[in-house]
């Protein structure tokens, strides 16, 4: 049977948004092929509590592996567990999220299984006997279509490209045992430092407000933060020049060598629109730009451009957004 296995990523006792995106994509693929979708979630004792949420997003079966040494990410134990389960379960497709952990794990599992691997895909379908997936290449300036008839096929899904949606399914829990001893892994995550819970991650934020060199100084990012707070559910990003200058952490950098994001709304403040930056945000649904230079390349991409001084426009925009969102 053409069943699909979805690797559901959890952190700190919660399913990540990308896990539900992968669930939804897996459900669609399995339904199309007339098979079942099984979710696999691994973590410390108590992880089985996440099963109902996976069932509500389309999992026919939820495979739960619990072990104290799965509290933090444990790449070696997960590789062994997922590869073994894929072999014995005879899955046609194994779906990961193209998160930092997923992008370490998926290729390693694929190599262990000598399986076909399509990374960071934005669409995936079974066409006849082949799996067909599209993947942005060359900093998003091109899209490659990858085709494989090999089985199993392993894919990782680009965050934000598959909308998570509810789809009630049985979600029957099946406990599975780790393969080998998870506490004997050679590589150990000894500490996970959670960012502040108030801070939304760039890959999960529906709105991103981003600043470039045009913000003129690190302390001016305060008004970028203010706008993000006024918008609600917004995260703050920056350009490479800004993180290279140490105004913002490298982890906030959006672009070719940083994060690739696809929010509903992207607000570019004092950003000229260099190729390197555009590569990280060109798939945003709506782009707003504020820049003093009318000739800046960012205005070729911005749905709504305002020519003006960010230090004047941004505080006024924040006030207008607060007014518009009164009652929220």
């Amino acid at each position, binding site marked *: 049977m053409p069943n699909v296995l979805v690797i559901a990523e959890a952190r700190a006792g919660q399913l990540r948004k990308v896990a539900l995106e992968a669930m939804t994509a897996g459900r669609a693929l399995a339904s199309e092929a007339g098979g079942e979708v099984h979710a696999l979630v691994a973590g410390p004792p108590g992880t089985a509590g996440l099963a109902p949420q996976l069932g509500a997003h389309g999992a026919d079966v939820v495979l739960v592996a619990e072990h104290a040494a799965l509290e933090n990410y444990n790449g070696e134990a997960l590789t062994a567990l997922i590869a073994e389960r894929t072999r014995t379960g005879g899955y046609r497709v194994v779906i990961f999220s193209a998160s930092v952990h997923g992008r370490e794990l998926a290729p390693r599992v694929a190599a262990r299984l000598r399986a076909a691997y399509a990374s960071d895909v934005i669409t995936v379908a079974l066409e006849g006997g082949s799996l067909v997936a599209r993947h942005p290449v*060359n900093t998003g300036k091109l899209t490659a279509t990858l085709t494989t008839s090999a089985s199993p096929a392993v894919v990782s899904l680009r965050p934000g490209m598959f909308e998570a949606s509810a789809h009630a399914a049985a979600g029957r829990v099946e406990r599975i045992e780790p393969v080998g001893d998870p506490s004997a892994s050679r590589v150990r*995550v000894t500490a996970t430092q959670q960012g502040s819970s108030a801070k939304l991650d760039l890959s999960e934020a529906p709105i991103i407000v981003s600043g470039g060199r045009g913000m003129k100084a690190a302390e001016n990012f305060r008004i970028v933060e203010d706008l993000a707070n006024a918008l609600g559910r917004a995260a703050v990003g920056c350009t490479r020049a800004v993180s290279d200058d140490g105004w913002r952490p490298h982890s906030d950098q959006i672009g070719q060598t940083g994060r690739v994001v696809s929010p509903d709304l992207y607000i570019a403040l004092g950003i000229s629109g260099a190729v390197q930056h555009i590569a990280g945000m060109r798939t945003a649904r709506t782009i707003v730009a504020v820049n003093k230079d009318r000739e800046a390349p960012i205005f070729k991409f911005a749905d709504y451009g305002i020519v003006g001084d960010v230090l004047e426009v941004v505080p006024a925009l924040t006030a207008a957004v607060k007014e518009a969102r009164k009652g929220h």
Partner: protein
Amino acid sequence: MKIAVCIKRVIDMEMRFRVAGDGASIDETGAKYDINDFDMYAIEAALQLRDKAGGGEVAIVSLGPVQAQEQIRKALSMGADRAVHLAADRIPSDGLAIAEALAAELRDGAYDLILFGKMSIDSSGQSVGPMVAELLELPLVAAVSKLDVQGDRGTAGRVLEGASETIEFPLPAVLTIDEGLNTPRLPNLKGIMAAKKKPLETRPARLGEQRVRTTSIELPADRPPGRIIGEGVAAIPELIRLLQTEAKVL
């Protein structure tokens, strides 16, 4: 400390891409090339680790066409000691086929560390490094942005989505290097002269079976042309109206 760094020759991303006649590759006419951005951090990390250990060797390994020797020479001019060019006319789309060729080269090299850039900016797969680790059954840490090696143990840091983590690993190991770890040095004239005399071996790449193929390449749908809606603070009411009624994001 004996370190291998796997690097890739990549096309200049600033160019205006055209799809070639076969519909499944890029027309590379007039293109410029360089070492993949992320591989530069891996080279720099290897040079610093070798020098801190007070000796050893940094070997560059690159799979690609004969022209990749330009990028190999650049890596040697930065300070690497020797290089191996695994000759292949085309670099396949299947990371595993590449990983098998690299693993065959690296397997008996007795390297303490094998470093990769986190990703190649052309094919953007982030797959070859982890796959080589698997084929060689070595410990793996991907996307390393902090690194400390003491004897036969290492500690790495990496940034996750909304979190970060600290990882301990034994040597030998495979690491993929993210930006932020260091600032890669530029080759100087002395380095460039020295690189000409450093050993560069070439042998055919023993590519694995290709399970995945690129069947087409397209330019993504263009965004609608940009639109300037006004100047300064005066344009804000119109922006708010458009975000509410047209884009429906507010």
